[in-house]
């Protein structure tokens, strides 16, 4: 008798559903934890995960992956790279680790939701590997930045950020609660694995890896591309679930959940990945613009995925495509202006050469966002840094918890898309954010954003200093201009004044 191949026994390992006798099916799989679509159990029997692996293969391959990532880190003696790295690149690392490490670990808890409450054994097995993967991503993305804390306190935020009330942490937690932590197993499969992991993780883990390789940060490039190989596997949990939902007449509701998740992700990436790629990455090292990466990975690949599976592109697709030209520029301006409120040092990315690049990639940039930077540059040149710093807090969206932004200049179009619900007025940054709220208002209505907390008197003293304290930011943590305004002096304009 010969030894067996995986395909010889794989189906047996996922033939593990049985009919409960001592408890009820509903007790074992409560609809709200398991499947909000309430598809009958027998319909889930056809679930077939496209990417198959076994435990034996998993521990072998993952051991090798870790050996690769850790040995590259050791061999390259990272501390030296960090000492010489561009401050903008350091900010990308701080933003990335703080925004992502603990959220990846939390994604493991969402994988656990699928591994326990998923209706198909194949989903449960794949999600068990997914739980392991996300444990990896949480742990490795803490281990790598940990060595930097002695050099720079902002790296402490790799662990601290998600525990804090920093506005960026609130926005991130809110988005991921909506697409994974607060959802049932079937919704997690759609919103986390399909809408997020087959689309947006490519941006952060492959797009940014390309920039990292250009910058010479081989360790980081290698780390995040290694992470993406895990994502690419467990991302495929969602596709067969979507297929079953569509076959059983739930296309409309599935479409809605995918549309919600996609929008939540898009807004978050506009503030995290957009500025990283178009402003923080040193100009000479930018492989592509944020928009170009988005067009390649999202508009191209994800649009194909979504149509192949039998869904439509989200109803707001035109709005999204238009937003690709604008939103992240506004978010970047906001983050740079409110720089004391973040745990990284935002790079302005607005030197003359960088403006040329922005104008080329985003025609009209100088006539819009550039006008705001002109004012900032003049203020710095005239010794008025104070005019480039915030004194209070911005209006933030009650859905994405990011500042409400618009296009400055002649096209100035900012508006508050508000909604009154049960006696309270909610403010939204776009009609899509308001639409998301309207789909399930009680999921969001009782939540207080940072500004709501400020107005409710929970932040004392009720000024910026009180807000920084509430957000957990000590003076050494607070962001400042990454290059200490050196970029301003590249402008051949009025006399240089010490800042």
């Amino acid at each position, binding site marked *: 008798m010969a030894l*067996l191949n995986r395909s010889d026994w794989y189906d047996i390992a996922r033939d593990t559903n049985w009919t409960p*006798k001592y*408890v009820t099916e509903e007790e074992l799989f409560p609809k*709200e934890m398991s499947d909000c679509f309430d598809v009958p159990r027998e319909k889930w029997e056809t679930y077939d995960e496209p990417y198959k692996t076994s435990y034996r293969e998993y521990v072998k391959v993952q051991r090798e992956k870790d050996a690769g990532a850790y040995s590259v880190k050791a061999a390259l003696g990272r501390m030296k790279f960090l000492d010489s790295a561009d401050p903008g690149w350091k900010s990308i690392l701080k933003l990335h680790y703080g925004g992502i490490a603990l959220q990846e670990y*939390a994604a493991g808890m969402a994988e656990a939701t699928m591994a326990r409450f998923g209706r198909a054994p194949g989903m449960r097995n794949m999600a068990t590997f997914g739980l*392991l993967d996300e444990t*990896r991503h*949480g742990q490795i993305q803490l281990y790598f930045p940990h060595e930097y804390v002695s050099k720079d306190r902002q790296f402490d935020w790799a662990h601290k950020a998600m525990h804090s009330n920093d506005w960026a942490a609130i926005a991130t937690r809110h988005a991921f609660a909506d697409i994974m932590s*607060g959802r049932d197993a079937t919704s997690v499969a759609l919103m986390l694995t399909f809408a997020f992991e087959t689309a947006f993780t490519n941006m952060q883990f492959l797009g940014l890896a390309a920039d990292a390789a250009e910058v010479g940060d081989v360790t980081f490039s290698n780390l995040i591309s290694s992470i993406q190989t895990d994502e690419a596997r467990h991302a495929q949990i969602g596709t067969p679930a979507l297929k079953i939902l569509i076959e059983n007449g739930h296309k409309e509701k599935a479409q809605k959940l995918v549309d919600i998740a996609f929008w939540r992700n898009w807004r978050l990436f506009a503030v995290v990945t957009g500025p990283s790629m178009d402003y923080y990455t040193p100009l000479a090292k930018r492989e592509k613009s944020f928009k170009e990466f988005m067009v390649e990975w999202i508009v191209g690949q994800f649009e194909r995925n979504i149509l192949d599976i039998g869904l439509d592109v989200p109803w707001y697709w035109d709005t999204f495509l238009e937003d690709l030209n604008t939103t992240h520029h506004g978010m970047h301006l906001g983050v740079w202006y409110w720089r004391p409120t973040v745990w990284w040092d935002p790079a302005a990315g607005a030197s003359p050469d960088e403006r040329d690049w922005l104008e080329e990639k985003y025609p009209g940039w100088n006539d819009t966002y550039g006008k705001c930077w002109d004012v900032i540059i003049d203020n710095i040149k005239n010794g008025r840094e104070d005019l480039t710093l915030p004194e209070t807090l911005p209006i933030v969206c009650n859905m994405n918890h990011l500042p409400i932004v618009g296009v400055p200049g002649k096209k100035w179009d900012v508006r508050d898309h508000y909604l009154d619900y049960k006696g309270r007025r909610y403010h939204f940054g776009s009609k899509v954010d308001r639409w998301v709220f309207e789909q399930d208002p009680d999921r969001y209505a009782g939540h207080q954003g940072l500004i709501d907390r400020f107005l409710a008197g929970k932040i004392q003293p009720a000024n910026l200093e009180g807000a920084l304290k509430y957000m957990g930011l000590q003076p050494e943590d607070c962001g400042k201009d990454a290059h200490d305004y050196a970029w301003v002096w590249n402008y051949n304009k009025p006399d240089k004044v010490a800042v």
Partner: protein
Amino acid sequence: MSETAQKLKPLKTWSHLSKNRRRPSEYEIVSVGLHFSTNDPDCAWEQDAGTFMNQWYRDYREGSPVNHEDWDTFRDPDELVYRTYNIIQDGQENYVDGLIKEFDDLEHDQGLQTEWVDALSKLYTPGRYILHGLQMASVYLAKMAPASTITNCATFQAADSLRWLSHIAYRTKQLSLVWPDYGFVDNEKHIWENAPHWQGFRELLEKALIAYDWCETFVAINLVLKPAFDEACLRQLGHAARRFDDSFLGFLTDAQAVDSQRSRRWTSSLVQFLQQNEANQDVLDGWVEKWVPLGDQAIDMFCAALPDSPSAADDAKRDCWSFRAGLGLSA
């Protein structure tokens, strides 16, 4: 920003570990304090506090009758992290690969006694259902535990369950090829759902899966179901296997017991950690008293079907009892 704020000293590790005043291990750096959902006991996840999921966490984690002043101080005695888990288990799988190859070369399955082949079809291969149930219960514990250091132990326990479920699936197929008339592959579900010797474990498993309080899950699974399974379905089955010249299964159950011993080490640590709060002792004892009769019943029913093993049930129950008694628990 305050101009008068005192300049902070440089950090040597994460600020939350700085109070320990010693160099942290890799384990501590990457394992401690990873759950931010525990920060607000009324609202685990950043959305309306009234959502079903937030209510679930209030009921079954924050609302648990066990308490501890700082859950994040729990430590896994093995200090396993993801990286080391894979290194260890890849090595363990190499060992099992070697066993599979060696016994395949010996044409071991062809030489099995028919009485024992029949026993395997009834007592061993249907075990994939209980292992999958253990996997489900362990991931639930991982999801709901109040500290990431507990979650990680449960995560690796879930993975271990999937490991042994996979080996049973492999062996089921192998046996079906040599012994096509014994119902291998096709008949396990029927046996799991109907054979009397599995009904004790099935009842215990199904009820444990809906014991949604995180710590009651821990008690039902780690202090009752897993010990009962380990003693009856690994140790006693392994003994019987050797009596029927199936040393292959004996080696496999011994290899599986290595994972179970690791589970018992962190289980013991967590019980001792819970006992730091005296009020938890009564809660633990209450749950143990509630679940142990189901565990004993499961052992009795399973072991009654073990061929040529008259003392198996008593031995298995005694070993479970002594594990719990060693932890100062009531049964």
